[in-house]
């Protein structure tokens, strides 16, 4: 699902200041109906402030937030048709699983029988055992609570569902399962999901589009594929796992030069308008060469160390002070020994020019 369908949520020059500090700085963004949009950023990038404004727990200092073309800046959270799953989940400890899920319906004075029916439907949809209905929510495991929190939000039947890093405290294996489940739920419900995380990896798995935030600004918005294969800045490229970044200067058409390495490289014919530029090569695109001429770009170095990453093996190659990472599939390991002189190289089309910021 690419491109924006009918817009549901629009942000226009939204800013949130605390004193002189702009936690969220002049954000313009349109989120489409039924989209799974993820905002990614390191801690302190302003993403939590952003989602709190979207959910109605904070008000923007300036700018407008529009929900289906209606300005909702001053609409309090309890009057917005949106709902949030909190980082802490904020489940009510004095209530059972069923009562937690039914909370929004109870607030709306839905009859108890209808409430229970809806809660049981949601429990089934989210793979919660039926006998959990009367269970104290504090006795549930981490993954179960996660599902209860999601069910509670879905029972509200929101137009947009917000998520504030709900999976950050969950162990790796369960998190991977829940990420996929969440995407399945997104498909089943067809609702708009706006998700916040500090993990670009998590964002990649689930999102239709990703917005990368840094110091209160949205620095790049695009599909997971665009963010991965065409980052516009060094920051975005480094956010998605290990990359090799070489600061370079322009050296005529299709060529750049690295002062530190004393070498010139062929690059793809894209233009970057930043003053300072970097050449980015992902480790999986670097390969070991028999001779320097075997690839358009090559460098000589020393094999310093190797790390097993499961399906792949990562090699650390040092060229002077500079460290390069090369990855190979586990089935095709590099046969060199540590401290061997090695030649590494890559094809220009597998490298990306980004702004050095």
């Amino acid at each position, binding site marked *: 699902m690419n491109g924006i369908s009918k817009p549901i949520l629009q942000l226009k020059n939204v800013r949130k200041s605390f004193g002189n500090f702009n936690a969220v700085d002049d954000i313009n963004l349109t989120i489409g109906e039924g989209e799974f949009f993820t905002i990614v950023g390191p801690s302190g990038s302003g993403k939590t402030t952003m989602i709190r404004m979207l*959910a*109605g*727990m904070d008000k923007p200092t300036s700018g407008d937030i529009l929900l289906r073309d209606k300005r909702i800046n001053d609409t*309090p*959270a*309890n*009057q917005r048709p949106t*709902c*949030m799953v*909190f980082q*802490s989940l*904020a*489940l*009510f*400890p*004095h209530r059972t699983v069923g009562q937690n899920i039914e*909370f*929004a319906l*109870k*607030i*709306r004075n839905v009859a108890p029988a209808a409430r229970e029916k809806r809660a049981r439907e949601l429990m089934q949809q989210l793979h919660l055992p039926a006998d959990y209905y009367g269970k*104290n929510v*504090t*006795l549930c495991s981490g993954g179960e609570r996660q599902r209860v929190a999601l069910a*509670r*939000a879905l029972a*509200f039947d929101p137009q947009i569902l917000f998520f504030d890093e709900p999976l950050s405290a969950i162990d790796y294996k369960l998190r991977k399962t829940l990420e996929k489940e969440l995407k399945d739920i997104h498909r089943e419900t067809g609702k708009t999901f706006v998700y916040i995380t500090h993990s670009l990896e998590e964002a990649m798995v689930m999102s239709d589009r990703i917005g990368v935030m840094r110091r209160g600004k949205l620095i790049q918005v695009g599909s997971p594929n665009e963010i991965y294969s065409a980052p516009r800045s060094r920051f975005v490229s480094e956010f998605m796992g290990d990359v090799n970044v070489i600061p370079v200067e322009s050296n005529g058409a299709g060529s750049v030069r690295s002062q530190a390495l004393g070498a010139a490289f062929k690059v793809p014919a894209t233009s970057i308008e930043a003053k300072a530029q970097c050449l980015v090569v992902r480790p999986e695109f670097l390969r070991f060469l028999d001779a320097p001429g075997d690839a358009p770009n090559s460098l000589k170095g020393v094999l310093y160390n190797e790390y097993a990453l499961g399906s792949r093996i990562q090699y650390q190659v040092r060229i002077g002070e500079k460290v390069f990472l090369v990855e190979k599939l586990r089935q095709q390991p590099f046969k060199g020994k540590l401290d061997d002189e090695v030649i590494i190289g890559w094809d220009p089309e597998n490298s990306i020019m980004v702004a050095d910021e």
Partner: protein
Amino acid sequence: MSALNSFFAQPGRRAAMPILVLLLLGFVAPLIAVVGFSFMPPRTFGLFHEPSLENYEKIFSDNTYVSLLWSLGLASATVVLLALICYPVAYGLVRVFGRWSTVLTLLFTIPLVVSENIRLYGWVLFFIKGGVLPGTLKTLFGAEMGDFLFTPAAVLFGMVYVYLPFMLFPMTLGIAMVPNQMREAATDLGASRWQVFREVELPLSTPGLMIGSLLTFVLAIGAIAEAKVLGGQRIIPITHDIEIAFTYAQNWPLGAALAVLLMLVVSVLVLAVLRRFDLDQILGKR
């Protein structure tokens, strides 16, 4: 003998002996003595007379139970009034001062360093005819104040005043324990302010309310100075009867019977409340 040996084989039981002996001597023995005395003939001073129920008969035939009812009534009224007064105060403290609120509440305990009797006599000077309040009212507005001092209302006032910190502190703690995200989550799910309070804040702060109520009830039922000083002996609480029996009347068995009765009533009430609200459940599973 071998049973005793196997009992002491566990090091934990041996290690528990000192505190066990201390508790038996310092806590259980006096209690047994009091219970024992309550079954002795009136005006005797030994524990080895023939047991009788005479003291208990006397309590119910002699309308001494009236003072027990006064004590229970005043203590209950004190708890209810304190809950009504302290909840809004504690709520305000927590919402305004956040995590500093519990520290601030400790300031309310400063008056406790002054003897209770002295503080109560202070109130006598405040309310007495021509005292601070009636005198000021009369001089400034020519208004005559009705009798307040030496009425049951004055006793109740004194009890509420004295036991306020004991309700406020646990209550503030209880309200401060409600995570802010719970409020936000409830609001986000559509709850109005009042619904957030009823559905989330009040139930989650119940432990504070319960502990404060139990504490103040147990303290208030043992109150004696308020009735003496502010009540002018117009009401006789059970504690006063017990004191008289042990001192002036030199009737230890009657005093012991009254004490046992009071203990029973308080224990039954407290246990009933604890059964109704499982403190462990509310406290343990936050």
